């Protein structure tokens, strides 16, 4: 989408010009969100031609593209001219802001914000307030704090963020890892896309295990069998569940053992019944909860008989001793 009309910067001296699309300098680092042209855009340009001009700075020997990279790419491939709106001479910040503003109609993802901020932070004397405003970032917002944390990570993490593999919510957790540990963590995000909650949990546990055991992330991941899980041909969802489970086991070995023992005992006593047996409070008490969802009087009578059979079992005590051991 092009929204030339919002570019107040250009209004006074903007001029339209035409030039072969292949003559445009399209290598500007401010084109930070450029993506390959979509088939729809390609079809439109082929069938209807260019309806909206691209933005350029034509003050130099060769026009420099400020916004409209996908269209220019298609037009160049088609050997056509590009209709350009010349915004005049602009510095790096003005080009970046014009690029952001030309995309103002679409929602800016966390990954895009980070890509934009990476560009602007390389510019000397950049007007931070103008940048934040153009990106819709509140100066004291949590999102900006997380973006700043993310910017401290190596640039290759941007790919994970843009691909939705790592949520921005993990930025401050990731920031706390040493470079070598961060490198080891990449294995988790290369092929898997984590939800915010799962990623925060897994990274928190890994960080805490490292701190507790004075261990490197690589060792923790090895201990959790991450390599084997990733190579095991599991679906992404199953692989993430398995990794989460294994890392939690390392973080909470005693609790995990108790949960396993309880589950075994609960399954034994409730097998073949409609009763679900759970421990409600992480073993803080000896309590056990038994519940069933019943939809008819007959089901109530049947469940009652099942409960009587459970109560008569010799291994019932096993449920109540897990928290005491």
């Amino acid at each position: 989408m092009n929204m030339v009309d919002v570019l107040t910067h250009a209004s006074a001296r903007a001029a339209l010009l035409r030039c072969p699309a292949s003559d445009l300098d399209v290598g500007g680092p401010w084109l930070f969100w450029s993506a390959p042209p979509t088939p729809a855009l390609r079809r439109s340009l082929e069938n209807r031609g260019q309806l909206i001009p691209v933005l350029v700075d034509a003050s130099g020997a060769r026009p420099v593209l400020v916004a409209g990279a996908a269209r220019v790419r298609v037009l160049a491939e088609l050997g056509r001219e590009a209709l350009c709106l010349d915004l005049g001479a602009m510095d790096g910040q003005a080009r970046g802001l014009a690029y952001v503003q030309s995309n103002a109609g679409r929602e800016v993802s966390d990954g895009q914000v980070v890509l934009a901020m990476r560009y602007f932070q390389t510019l000397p004397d950049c007007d931070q307030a103008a940048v934040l405003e153009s990106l819709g970032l509140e100066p004291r917002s949590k999102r900006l704090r997380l973006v700043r944390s993310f910017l401290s990570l190596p640039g290759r993490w941007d790919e994970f963020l843009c691909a939705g593999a790592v949520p921005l919510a993990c930025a401050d957790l990731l920031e706390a890892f040493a470079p070598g540990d961060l490198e080891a963590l990449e294995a988790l995000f290369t092929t898997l896309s984590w939800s915010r909650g799962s990623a925060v949990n897994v990274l928190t546990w890994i960080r805490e295990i490292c701190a507790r055991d004075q261990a490197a992330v690589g060792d923790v991941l090895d201990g959790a069998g991450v390599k084997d899980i990733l190579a095991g041909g599991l679906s992404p969802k199953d692989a993430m569940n398995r990794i989460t489970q294994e890392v939690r086991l390392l973080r909470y070995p005693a609790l995990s053992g108790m949960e396993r023992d309880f589950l075994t005992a609960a399954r034994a006593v409730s097998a073949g019944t409609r009763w679900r047996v759970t421990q409600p409070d992480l073993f803080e008490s000896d309590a056990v909860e038994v519940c069933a969802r019943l939809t008819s009087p007959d089901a109530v009578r049947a469940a009652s008989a099942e409960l009587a059979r459970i109560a008569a079992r010799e291994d019932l005590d096993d449920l109540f001793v897990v928290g005491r051991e």
Partner: protein
Amino acid sequence: MKNLPSYLHGISRVVVDSSVAESPVARRVRERLPHLTAEILPEGETLSPGLAREDILYLKRYRGRFLRHCPGTSHYRCCGYQIIHIGENCPLRCSYCILQAYFHDRVLKVWANQDDLWSELDQAFNSHPALRYRVGTGEFTDSLVLEALTGYSRDLIEFLGRYPQVCLELKSKVVDLSWMDVVRDPSRVLPAWSMNAPAIAEREEQGECAGLEERLAAARTCAQAGFRVCLHFDPMIHFPGWQDGYARTVEMIFDHLRPEQIAYVSMGSFRHMPDLKRSITENFPESTYIYGEFITGLDGKQRLLRPLRVEQFRFLADALRRGGLDRQLYLCMESDEVWQAVLGRTPADMGGLYRHLMAQAFGGET
């Protein structure tokens, strides 16, 4: 300044509410910190909030209730101790200190309007003359850490001398026995010190806390003067080698004290609200005990997984029992299940923890 203990050397600014500028506490602070000019805060003005500095001593006119119940939590057994609120914060730096999460600033506050305190206590104790009170000042600050400046506990002891139904506990990690000479009846004052494994005392109780030996030597001095003392293993910390550490501390206790010189010993496992964990990771990044197996307890606080707590409590309780303590032992904020597993009894078996500790505090007088 040179006569002040080292843990007070960091104070570099004194602020006083104008209404308490001529109070005995303010006068003493002026005398004992002659190199500092107190800033007088006019009536109606408050010290800016969010002050992270621990070098400010603020002598304040406190307008809240001085006598209050300990903020115990639901679902667990509370000891029923009552707090005499004399101030907030502490210049010592213990990594596990709950005050980091309780208060948003680190300003050392002292309630200098003691006349209001005396009035409130007079009213409370006179309206129920037959009721016994076990009170203490060590909940929101260390009972004695500012004593060399304020003489607060000395004043309080003198005041409470009129009320034999009140037993005052002074809980501390420093050694300051300057109050001893004003005690009318040693059976009504319980000097108390925090105990921990030596490694925890060295690593996690930073600042200028007295060493465990120094605390126990002070306890012995008190015991020899006719006082019974209290010891608090709270928080017990789960760390590699905790068995050796707590065993060593128990040895040290019985090197210094006889069982009959000890009124009671509490045992409490490290527990915290989530905010405290954040404070500890930020302020004490070397402290790794917070990465133990903590779960959310019935009261919403994080606490060590029950079997791990029970193992530690049982170990310590057994060691203390071998030294001759039994009825003096109690658990702080634990469930009946844990009481039973550790001590083989519940508070109900002793007539309730509040009543039991009241009797212990008053030397078995019922």
